[in-house]
């Protein structure tokens, strides 16, 4: 018996619609975030992360509506990130039924928001997302505003501070590897994992089950987040977990995964 490593599909949502390509044949509406999340639940996902990438500011109600609908249907935990700037935003998203919120730019600009959220809703509800970019040997710099603005802050130091402020979890994205499908930044992941005493979710770079295996073993991450390998149905969550289980990584295996036949086309079909 041991706490399992979590596999977390991430859905990018723009104006209430999932934006990355999706090839699941059994969904009535593949762009519907709720349908998509339910499909991942059926496949054996341990959690879902929704990343709201909508640029417009009149988006709040759309996000709250999505959170409410998701909470209504989903039987596994889910996190909502993107555009959460204030305590009022944190409160609205959590009260609409999200299990956790993920704070990125707002946490850097106002670390007190981490503490305020944690004190009222509990640390487990507050995820601090860190976008990190290599800045020399063994050094990573924190970026905000969707990776557009350098902060001068060291990523490992920021993770430690976020924990002190009350974060319950770190969602760590390597900007250098994100989208590369070459694997996670294992050195960054390991450095942060070893520096904090809260769970670390590795993100950015997953292209195969072997990459996820590396993040959870060499990278010492507690969970792995991936987007495209699941969205484009290259692998189901169940297939990734079977791969990990064969190699001794503790994962939750569904007794009868009902999403096993959801994949269309072969590997690398994107």
């Amino acid at each position, binding site marked *: *018996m*041991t*706490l*399992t490593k*979590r596999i977390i599909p991430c859905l990018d949502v723009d104006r209430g619609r999932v934006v990355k390509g999706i090839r699941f044949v059994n969904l009535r509406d593949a762009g519907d975030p709720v349908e998509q999340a339910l499909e991942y*639940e059926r496949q054996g996902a*341990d959690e879902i992360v929704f990343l709201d990438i909508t640029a417009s500011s009149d988006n709040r109600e759309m996000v709250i509506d999505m959170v*409410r609908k998701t*909470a*209504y*249907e989903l*039987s*596994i*935990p889910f996190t909502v990130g993107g555009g959460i700037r204030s305590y009022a935003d944190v409160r609205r998203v*959590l*009260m*609409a*039924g999200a*299990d956790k919120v993920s704070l990125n730019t707002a946490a850097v600009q106002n670390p007190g928001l981490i503490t305020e959220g944690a004190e009222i*809703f*509990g*640390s*487990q509800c507050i995820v601090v997302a860190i976008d990190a970019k290599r800045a020399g040997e063994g050094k990573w710099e924190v970026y905000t505003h969707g990776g557009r603005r350098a902060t001068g802050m060291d990523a490992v130091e920021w993770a430690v501070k976020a924990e002190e402020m009350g974060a*319950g*979890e770190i969602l760590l994205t390597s900007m250098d590897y994100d989208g590369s499908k070459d694997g996670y930044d294992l050195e960054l992941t390991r450095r942060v994992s070893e520096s904090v*005493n*809260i*769970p670390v979710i590795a993100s950015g770079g997953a292209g195969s089950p072997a990459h996820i295996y590396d993040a959870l073993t060499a990278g010492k991450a*507690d*969970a792995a987040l991936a987007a495209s390998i699941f969205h484009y149905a290259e692998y189901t969550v169940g297939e990734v977990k079977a791969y990990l289980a064969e190699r001794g990584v503790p994962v*939750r295996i*569904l*007794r009868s995964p009902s999403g096993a036949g959801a994949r269309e086309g072969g590997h690398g079909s994107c």
Partner: protein
Amino acid sequence: MRVAVLDMGLGNLLSISRGIERASQGMFAGSSPNPGSGATGAEVIVAKCDTDADRADAVVIPGVGAFRDGARALMDRFGRTVERIRTGEIPALGVCLGMQLLFTRSFEGGEHPGLGIIRGDVVRLPPTVKVPHMGWNSVMLLRDCALTKGIQDGEYFYFVHSYYCRPDEGSATVAETEYGVQIPAIVAKGKVFGTQFHPEKSGEAGRMVIRNFLEAAGH
């Protein structure tokens, strides 16, 4: 079947309420509390006071917030309901913090009395593990219980907590999980049940536990 989720004013009750509704779909065909509505699941009401809870066949003590606030709210708002739980008049399920509140006292942020329905303390997880204990952990079944009907030994459930229960009465523990220490995952005493995990967030296995509770409560 009508289930009251006790509103202790500590946060969102949508997840647990909907979890009960989802899990109970199809359980009560022909005995819907809302004839004509087509509903075949349990009717869930969010109870703000004893009078609301009086209308229910079973109660759920939800799992959000801090121990001290939860205990205070239970005693202030639901004094009579707590007595009915204590005497076995109404079946109850405590979830996460709701399970911890069943115990004698907690050391979360000081020392605070709980309901004392199950004798024992609630203490912090050891410093040897990452806190909170967050994620899916497997559960070992120690004895038969209505709540675990159809659940296999080693099944996974979703946990999120920083404190855990240490019962003085070992017979209360139905199932446990391991995270640095042995942690009671399910407790039961008469018609009072508790789960340290969140059944409403534990997929199919969690649905089964909720259904088992409703079935046990219906008898």
